[in-house]
């Protein structure tokens, strides 16, 4: 072998060995010793209370509680492009939950996505956000979780195909996409803004739904808050790509996150309803901080959109009404007969049906949310004042739903017509049917968490 080629070979060997070592270092994580399950009384009550609030901001219960299951005992199926992942049991059960996890183990899971035994966790658990949570907040969350009722519920097998079922692959994912470091405050911004940024980028993990993902399932940082998907719902763009007819501001966001609805924007539906339900138990100041930060994300509305206040929208709507009716008589008649009695009745919101000219669902490029709502309606919440809308899946054919959706788009938005509405309606109907067959109404967990108790 020539000297050059020997050098090259050595360099290659070093690189390979180094790479392997590095890879090994990344892939392999040590187990952290199991501890005796800490006594609930050992935790300071104020710390537990803070942990409860943080858990609400983090929406832990919604993933870690299955329909019909016990609180935090896991088992919720989360569909991903790679297969179905089941959430884990985070009750302090010693055998099947996190009862034997030390605080350090818990923090490592939040920070780096590694469980006590050293296995990599799938990023369905959004540790790419939770890595930003501070030490003291992790401590509070740990205190909260360790004082929950232990539930014996063994983990369900994930349904992933090769190579995704190899946890080593996650190591590679982390290498590419997991950025560490506690969130750094921006001194140019207010304390409130910074608090909001800390929560949004961290625990609240808004981007996990509202940011589009790449082919490997990681958030595309260059398109942060440009909109994403969850459960056949579209999580709207929250940045300058927003299609909300009335631009969001901090006050509107605060009211919406607090109460679950806003007169200019509608009510929180689908998975967002669960988020808002949790936020109702969180200190106002935190909700306000989130609102302030997200208002910054939406940016100041362009002069164009600024002019679109409700009165203008109303005026536009009636102008558009006649042209929309002419081109789509069927949709117009369906709207007049089935929808207008509630949506144009002038009854007080949120119970009288939102003014459709204000609906982001109609203004959004993706008609899926509107299709979901028209088909399934809005169900009553047990014992709480909340909107009820009948679903039209049983009384409207796909053709009728499509005609209606197209009409609503033409009449109540300035946007170009949707395409592919027929298929979207079919898919929405199928997804709905599937979910109705597989998930009976939960009987002894929190009632479908959607709305407030006061009108």
């Amino acid at each position, binding site marked *: 072998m020539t000297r050059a080629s020997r050098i090259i070979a050595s360099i290659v060997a070093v690189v390979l060995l180094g790479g392997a070592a590095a890879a090994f270092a990344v892939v392999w994580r040590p187990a952290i010793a199991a501890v005796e399950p800490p006594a609930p009384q050992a935790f300071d009550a104020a710390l537990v209370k803070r942990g409860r609030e943080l858990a609400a901001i983090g929406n832990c219960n919604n993933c870690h509680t299955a329909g019909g299951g016990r609180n935090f005992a896991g088992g919720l199926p989360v569909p991903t492009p790679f297969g179905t992942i089941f959430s884990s049991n985070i009750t302090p059960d010693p055998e099947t939950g996190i009862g034997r996890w030390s605080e350090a183990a818990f923090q490592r899971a939040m920070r780096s996505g590694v469980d006590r035994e050293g296995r990599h966790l799938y990023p369905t658990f959004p540790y790419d956000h939770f890595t930003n949570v501070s030490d003291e907040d992790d401590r509070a969350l740990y205190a909260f979780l360790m004082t929950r009722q232990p539930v014996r519920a063994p983990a369900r097998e994930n349904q992933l195909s090769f190579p995704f079922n190899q946890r080593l692959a996650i190591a590679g994912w982390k290498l590419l996409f997991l950025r560490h470091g506690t969130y750094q405050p921006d001194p140019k911004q207010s304390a409130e803004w910074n608090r909001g940024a800390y929560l949004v980028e961290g625990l609240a993990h808004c981007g996990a739904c509202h940011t589009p993902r790449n082919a490997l399932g990681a958030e595309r940082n260059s398109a942060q808050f440009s909109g994403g998907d969850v459960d056949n719902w579209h999580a709207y763009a929250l940045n300058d790509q927003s299609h909300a007819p009335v631009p969001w501001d901090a006050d509107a966001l605060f009211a919406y996150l607090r109460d679950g609805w806003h007169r200019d924007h509608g009510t929180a539906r689908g998975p967002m309803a669960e988020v808002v339900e949790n936020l109702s138990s969180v200190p106002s100041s935190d909700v306000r901080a989130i609102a302030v930060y997200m208002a910054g994300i939406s940016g100041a509305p362009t002069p164009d959109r600024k002019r679109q206040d409700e009165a203008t929208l109303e005026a536009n709507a009636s102008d558009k009404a006649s042209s929309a009716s002419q081109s789509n008589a069927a949709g117009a*008649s*369906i709207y*007049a*007969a*089935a929808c207008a*009695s*509630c949506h144009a009745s002038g009854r007080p919101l949120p119970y009288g049906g939102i003014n459709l000219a204000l609906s982001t669902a109609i203004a959004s490029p993706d008609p899926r949310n509107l299709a979901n709502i028209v088909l399934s*309606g809005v*169900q*009553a919440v047990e014992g709480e004042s909340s909107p*009820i*809308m*009948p679903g039209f*899946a*049983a*009384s*409207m054919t796909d053709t*009728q739903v499509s005609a209606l959706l197209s009409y609503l788009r033409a009449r109540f938005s300035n946007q170009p017509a949707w395409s592919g509405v027929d298929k979207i309606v079919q898919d929405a109907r199928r997804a709905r049917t599937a979910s109705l067959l597989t998930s*009976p*109404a939960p*009987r002894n967990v929190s009632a479908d968490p959607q709305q407030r108790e006061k009108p």
Partner: protein
Amino acid sequence: MMTLKVNGREHQVDADPDTPLLYVLRDDIKLNAAKFGCGLGQCGACTVIVDGKAVLSCVTPMILLEGKQVTTLEGLGTIAEPAPIQRAFMEEQAAQCGYCIAGMMMRAQALLQRNSKPTDEQIRAELEPHLCRCGTHMRILRAVRRAARLMDTAEASPAAKGSIQ
């Protein structure tokens, strides 16, 4: 003038396309079972079956019913020849004031036509849109389970199951 097929018969109805089916059934065709409870799709008292699926007739305007088949409680059976669901409700005495019952029965009928052995959970979930103010819920559930058993018996002929389509 619109044609509406109800309980196997065609009716010529002089109603605007935006008229909810409920009023056509009650006022034009003079059927009693589907009831006005709220007119808002919140209580289920108006429930009938359209093309095999339970719908709230108070929020189903005529325009949606072109070419569809409507079945009301009257179409399932009579006192002399009751359908299984009607027999079940009579045998369980599943009514107090009875105002909500017709809607419940139609929803249950649609369920049983689709799923002849529903679990208790499934029955409860199915009846979620329905309100009963008298508190007859226990009997209603028993009556639906009884109807499932009646429909399931070997003697039940398709006609006796009570479904039209």
